[in-house]
């Protein structure tokens, strides 16, 4: 049995074990679940050790003599002092460094990219209405760049922002605006849910495509044999649990 065939049997078995949860919770599902957690954790450890410890720390320091790298290594080691109660205070310097650098990098870039740029994009289409040829207005709903859509987006942004503005009571005209905001939010949640359904179905399609592929004779038909084995195991487990006496509390 070559590596590809072995991989097909393992992938098929684990897929069927995970799918068995749709019938009910069972030891086969738990086995696959625990294997997933263990294997992914092991993979992470090995990859990070190889990429960071060996390639970014050991080799540059030992082979290329980049002594300056000892400074971030020392800061990294300070993290480990969390495990020694008397020296745990030293880890705060490492955390302070990470929080400081992280915030310094993220805050200006995030404000620029998400807040300023998005505000600009909300207002710019309205400004473009007043072009060199006077005031123009395009009504095409199917064109995302049309002026009508720009106004709908502006109403959406303003009303949703108002809905989350709690300093004044949402009554009278304010209630209308807040209700409009709720309508926009519901449409957004609906779109997001639709996409989520599509994504989950895509995952199912991916697994079923593999199961169909692995039902081929060139792999030894693992889908067929392992489906029979999984159903048989579920049947036996079901019989065993129904015949065992209820446990006293």
């Amino acid at each position, binding site marked *: 049995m070559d590596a590809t065939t072995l991989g097909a049997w393992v992938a098929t078995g684990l897929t069927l074990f995970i799918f068995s949860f*749709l*019938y009910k919770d069972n030891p086969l599902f738990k086995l696959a679940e625990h294997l997933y957690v263990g294997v*992914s954790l092991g*993979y*992470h450890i090995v*990859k*990070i050790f190889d*990429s*960071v410890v060996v*390639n*970014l720390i050991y*080799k*540059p320091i030992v082979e290329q003599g980049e002594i300056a790298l000892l400074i971030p290594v020392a800061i990294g080691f300070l993290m480990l002092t969390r495990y020694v109660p008397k020296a745990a205070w030293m880890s705060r310097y490492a955390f302070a460094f990470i929080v400081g650098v992280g915030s310094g*990098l*993220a805050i200006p*870039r*995030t404000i*620029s*990219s*998400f807040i300023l*740029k*998005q505000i*600009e*994009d909300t207002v710019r289409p309205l400004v473009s209405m007043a072009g060199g040829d006077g005031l123009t207005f395009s009504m095409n709903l199917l064109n*995302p760049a049309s002026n009508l859509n720009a106004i709908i987006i502006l109403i959406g942004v303003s009303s949703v922002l108002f809905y989350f503005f709690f300093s004044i009571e949402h009554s009278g005209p304010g209630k209308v605006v807040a209700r409009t905001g709720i309508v926009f939010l519901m449409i*957004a949640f609906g*779109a*997001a849910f639709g*996409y*989520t*359904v*599509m*994504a989950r*179905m*895509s*995952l*199912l*399609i*991916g*697994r*079923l*495509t593999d199961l*169909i592929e692995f039902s081929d004779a060139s792999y030894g038909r693992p889908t067929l044999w392992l489906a029979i084995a999984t159903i048989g195991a579920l049947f036996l487990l079901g019989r065993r649990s129904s015949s065992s006496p209820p446990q006293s509390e």
Partner: protein
Amino acid sequence: MTLSERMLKIDRRIIFLVIGLCTLLPLLYPVGLPIKISPEVRSIYDYIESLPERSVFLLSIDFDPASKPELHPQAIALLRHAFRKNLRVVAMTLWVSGTGMADQLLTQVAKEMGKEDGKDYVFLGWSSGGTAVIINMGQDLYKAFPSDYGGKATKGIPVLEGVLSLKDVAYAISLGAGNPGVEAWYVFGKDKYKFELGGGCTGVIAPGLYPLLRSGQINGLIGGLRGAAEYESLVGHKGRAVAGMDAQSATHFAIIVLVAMCNLFYFSLRQQQGRSRELPVKRGH
């Protein structure tokens, strides 16, 4: 028990079975429903088409096997297109759990297209730091990745000739399943180092990326399996995504029917309960 009550208390395993069959049958017996190309997918295709030969194309494979069904076909279609255009492909990942898969898919497509490692493409692998890697690459690509995935020093690799940082990249695409992904590439990459950026993502995060598309922060977006199918159609090499489209349509139809039926039975039950509550009141009068 009325029909509505019985239907609303139906065993959920029956619904699983219906969805399973709606997915499985079109995969076994495809119909070949037409696929309409959306402007956001076409703009990525057109941009790659407009690039001159040997331009540097950066593909950041920011996902792991958990998102493989949606993003793997996107990566394959994009790589086929880039190799066909004879671009210099620089691939990498910001997700440590996706390194092995990314290497496998790049090697597979390169072999299929007759491309040579180091000359036509390079896989830089993964480097620690998350979004900081993008900033690091913007300053000095060789400091962010001193060696490629195979352990070879990146300085001197022919495919990286003339490439010092992200500023030398003609076009970058991030195929992201979360963070770090497309947003991080915009915030810490394009916005700072001014290169053109496109995005590919899972269906779950696609709605969140549309504002970036509208504002021109990314020039195109391939969303989920549907986007992958569109790109496969554009490239003219139909693969797994196109094959899955019939199943996707069938399951969506089944879900719409189930949601409609559920609402119908719910309102019917509520009406029945309202009537039964009214009856004793009327008798009392």
